[in-house]
């Protein structure tokens, strides 16, 4: 009751403030008239009565103020008043206001954008129920040599059988299918996941339409079934619900559509367009092997079971598997990661480094603005002193200062949000490797972060100058203003401290950026060992349906190469199962026929490539010994292989490899293939030394190949002519990933380039800010010491001495900052070690270059004010008093 009454009162005071003020006025007037009437009744004259009444009434303004103070919302009125004063002050110096707003908007915007990314990618849970129970399981080695190997089918089967920690364990593998055209739709290659039937239920997904796979459908002999994603269903089948139960052609075979995934489901990423049952798609033999590592395993922990417990249990199972299979690449340990973590640990360090950098940038921006405000406070110290003398409270003055900086930060925040939105869009479009990029957007939490950033900036930038203004000694301030020769030494020292901090932060950023840039440069200058310029690549999969025999496929390959090589402007063409530079994507174990058996537990391992005879010439990979593959190595007659230098170095030291035989049981069971030649090394991962490679004859029959074409002139120009050639051979054959070799390699360096460029951009920005700060402080110092300098010159001090004096004043904070920054960098750069390539955290070159750059920039920033000081006309300087 009472509470409601109070609320009603408050609301009234808020909504009808103007009316209440008028009423107060009327009330007081009424009182006055009563008094006059009483005075008249007591026998006074009209004028006398009025005067006496007014006299007894006292100061009406004060009375009004006192009455108003008892109203609620008075604090808000004060706030509005402060804001109005602040806006007016800022509008009086639009240049300053605009600079400050822009600088802070950049800082806030960059921070909000990076935070959005970090939150969406690293912090926000997956859209699955009880997602903290979800883990990804990897094979690992107990000696720690690798932690995140993909899993063999046999190991998974054993885990599922023996482990009790999981309520469900599921397995999947990425694949590309040809989706045949219905009607006049073009055939296309779609990304897909083959998964055990329990994968989707394990995640807690419910079908939007139809159902998911049954256990019976996840068997080798079952009818072929498929689940479509929402996107594919809408795009390709027009969202027709009748598609459920009908068949679609996948790799030229009929698959029955059993269900549609909900629209929100985009896991592992948006490239996955359909799902098939894994055990139907892959041979039972593969699913029982312990040494063929192919799959991703996801598990849901039973309630109450920790990752460590589950890991301990699976480790024991895997150790036992290794004991049973001491030969071959069989792992002896496992590694469990939370599912969110497993997807993001590769981009984590980079993103956190960038977020750290933006925080530094924001801090620098704030310090800069604080610095500018200190300068303004200094130029207004006379006003402040007078107000203090008249009884203005210190709190009130601080409040005004903070209100002013908060106004600035609010405006910056608005602008910064616009900027952040653009930045987020740009980041997403540039970084395709960011997991779940489609889930990135600014939400309530991001807005809270933005608000916190705005409030923090306003407080920081406002409190520093406000708290350090020592205007309690009013008299000194007033006197100091009278003579401008030594004024505000305290303020100058404060500004120099702020500046040293700013420079220090800048140095840290510059060094971080320098290290990343150097890594990127090292990556780019690596000799790949094959033609990278003017090379076009594209991928195709010969469908099992229309190319059922090896002979059919080989004849297609031969015709294709013949026709492509005949296209004018094409210098060479070849076919390979794996494009170099794409990373370590296919490796197998082998033995050397002539060598004695290896000790137990050791295996030889090499990347597996199937190439056509013209491939080495097309890619300009030199044949160093022996010869390349021959067109006669075809079909069942294929019995020659070519190896690379690295394999010779590792496995044939002091021995001629030519004529030795490779037993490659995985791809050619029971067959020994003769080594006919040795070719140069190629780098398949930029950041890794070349791996050993075995090149097998493609004409033994393969389905999925990449065409590589070396061209005379820009490679991209040849994409269409080559595709036309393919269409002339088989117009239903879809072609995918048409890329130049630069793009292929570029994709693997995009992280490094991205992190380096962005960090560099931040560093340059902060260098600019620091430069502006230095310039501002020194100009301020010069202006303050005009008289002193005038006196010095008048007394005969040489001009270059004045320059030196002023330069020293300006460079001192820069030097302090440099020392501070270098010291901090030694600690901070350790954190980004994992992002570096071909350089160490304490790369002396980077440290030297950064120091020199910083000193040069600082000198340039200080030179102009110092020079201006030396040009002072002493007469003018002294007269300006």
């Amino acid at each position, binding site marked *: *009751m*009472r509470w409601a*009454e*109070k609320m009603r*009162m408050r609301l009234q*005071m808020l909504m009808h403030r103007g009316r209440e003020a008028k*009423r*107060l006025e*009327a*009330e*007081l*007037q*009424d*009182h006055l*008239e*009563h*008094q006059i*009437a009483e005075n008249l009744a007591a026998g006074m004259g009209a004028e006398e009565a009025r005067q006496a009444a007014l006299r007894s*009434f*006292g100061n009406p303004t*004060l*009375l009004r103020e*006192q*009455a*108003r*103070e*008892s*109203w*609620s919302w008075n604090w808000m009125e004060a706030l509005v008043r402060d804001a109005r004063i602040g806006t007016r002050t800022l509008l009086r110096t639009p240049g300053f206001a605009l600079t400050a707003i822009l600088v802070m908007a950049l800082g806030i915007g960059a921070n909000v954008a990076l935070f959005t990314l970090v939150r969406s990618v690293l912090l926000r849970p997956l859209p699955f129920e009880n997602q903290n129970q979800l883990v990804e399981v990897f094979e690992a080695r107990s000696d720690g040599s690798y932690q995140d190997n993909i899993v063999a089918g046999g190991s998974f089967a054993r885990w599922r059988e023996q482990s009790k920690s999981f309520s469900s364990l599921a397995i999947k593998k990425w694949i590309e299918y040809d989706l045949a055209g219905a009607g006049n739709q073009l055939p296309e290659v779609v990304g897909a996941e083959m998964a055990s039937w329990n994968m989707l239920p394990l995640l807690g997904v419910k079908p939007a339409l139809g159902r998911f796979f049954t256990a019976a459908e996840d068997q080798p002999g079952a009818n072929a079934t498929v689940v479509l994603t929402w996107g594919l269903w809408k795009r390709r089948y027009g969202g027709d619900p009748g598609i459920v139960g009908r068949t679609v052609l996948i790799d030229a075979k009929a698959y029955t559509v059993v269900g549609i995934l909900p629209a929100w489901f985009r896991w592992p990423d948006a490239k996955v367009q359909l799902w098939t049952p894994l055990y139907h798609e892959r041979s039972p033999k593969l699913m029982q092997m312990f040494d063929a590592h192919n799959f991703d395993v996801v598990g849901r922990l039973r309630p109450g079971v920790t990752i460590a417990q589950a890991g301990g249990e699976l480790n024991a199972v895997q150790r036992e598997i290794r004991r049973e299979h001491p030969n071959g690449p069989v792992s002896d340990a496992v590694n469990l990661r939370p599912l969110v973590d497993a997807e993001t640990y590769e981009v984590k360090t980079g993103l956190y480094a960038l977020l750290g950098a933006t925080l530094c940038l924001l801090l620098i921006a704030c310090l800069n603005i604080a610095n500018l405000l200190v300068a303004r406070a200094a130029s207004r110290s006379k006003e402040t002193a007078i107000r203090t003398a008249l009884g203005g409270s210190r709190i009130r003055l601080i409040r005004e200062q903070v209100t002013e900086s908060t106004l600035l930060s609010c405006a910056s925040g608005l602008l910064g949000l616009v900027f952040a939105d653009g930045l987020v869009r740009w980041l997403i479009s540039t970084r395709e490797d960011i997991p779940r990029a489609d889930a990135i957007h600014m939400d309530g939490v991001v807005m809270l972060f933005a608000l916190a950033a705005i409030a923090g900036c306003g407080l920081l930038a406002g409190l520093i100058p406000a708290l350090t203004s020592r205007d309690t000694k009013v008299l000194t301030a007033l006197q100091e203003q009278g003579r401008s020769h030594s004024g505000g030494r305290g303020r100058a020292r404060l500004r120099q401290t702020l500046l040293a901090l700013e420079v220090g932060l800048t140095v840290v950023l510059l060094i971080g950026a320098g290290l990343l840039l150097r890594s990127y440069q090292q990556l780019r200058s690596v000799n790949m060992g094959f033609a990278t310029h003017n090379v076009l690549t594209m991928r195709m999969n010969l469908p099992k349906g229309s190319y059922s025999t090896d002979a059919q496929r080989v004849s297609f390959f031969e015709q294709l190469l013949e026709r492509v090589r005949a296209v004018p402007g094409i210098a060479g063409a070849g076919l390979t199962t794996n494009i170099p530079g794409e990373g370590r994507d296919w490796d197998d174990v082998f033995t050397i026929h002539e060598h004695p058996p290896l000790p137990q537990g050791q295996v030889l391992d090499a990347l597996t490539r199937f190439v056509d005879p013209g491939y080495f010439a097309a890619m300009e990979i030199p044949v160093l010994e022996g010869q390349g593959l021959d067109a006669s190595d075809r079909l069942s007659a294929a019995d020659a292989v070519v190896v690379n230098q690295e394999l010779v170095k590792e496995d044939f030291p002091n021995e001629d490899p030519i004529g030795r035989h490779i037993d490659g049981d995985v791809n050619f069971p029971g067959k020994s293939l003769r080594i006919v030649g040795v070719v140069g090394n190629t780098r398949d991962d930029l950041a890794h030394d070349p791996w050993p490679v075995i090149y097998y004859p493609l004409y033994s029959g393969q389905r999925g190949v990449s065409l590589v074409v070396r061209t005379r002139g820009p490679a991209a120009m040849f994409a269409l002519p080559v595709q036309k050639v393919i269409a002339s051979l088989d117009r239903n054959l879809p072609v995918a990933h048409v890329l130049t070799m630069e793009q292929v390699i570029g994709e693997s360096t995009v992280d490094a380039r991205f992190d380096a460029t962005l960090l560099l951009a931040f560093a340059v920005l902060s260098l600019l800010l620091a430069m502006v700060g230095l310039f501002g402080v020194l100009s301020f110092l010069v202006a303050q010491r005009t008289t002193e300098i005038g006196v010095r010159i008048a007394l005969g001090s040489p001009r270059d001495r004045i320059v030196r004096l002023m330069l020293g004043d300006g460079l001192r904070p820069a030097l302090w900052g440099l020392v501070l920054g270098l010291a901090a960098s030694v600690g901070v750069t350790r954190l980004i070690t994992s992002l570096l390539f071909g350089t160490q955290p304490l790369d002396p070159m980077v440290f030297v270059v950064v120091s020199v750059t910083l000193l040069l920039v600082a000198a340039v920033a200080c030179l102009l004010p110092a020079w201006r000081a030396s040009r002072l006309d002493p007469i003018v300087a002294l007269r300006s008093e």
Partner: protein
Amino acid sequence: MGKPNDLVQGTLDLLILRTVAPEPMHGWAIAKRIQQISHEVLQVQQGSLYPALHRLEQQGWIRAKWAESETGRQAKFYALTAAGKKQLEEETANWNRLSAAIDLVIAGA
């Protein structure tokens, strides 16, 4: 004499609440009534009266209504609310206890 400053802290509130308890009154009348009843001992100054009235109103102990006063002007008539009545009882009890205690001390000395 009898300046509000000399009144015990919070006494003005009690006086106002007590004065408006029988019937709604405007500011001038409240001041006059207090003066009359106290035989001109207590003179409430405008400088204290109006801030106090507004404070009591914000607290929800009295409620203001606009009506025509005897001068023919629109004036604010203050009336006691239910919460105000309770407050008045409390403060009266307090006051009685306090003044009785003071009497005892004075008589005993």
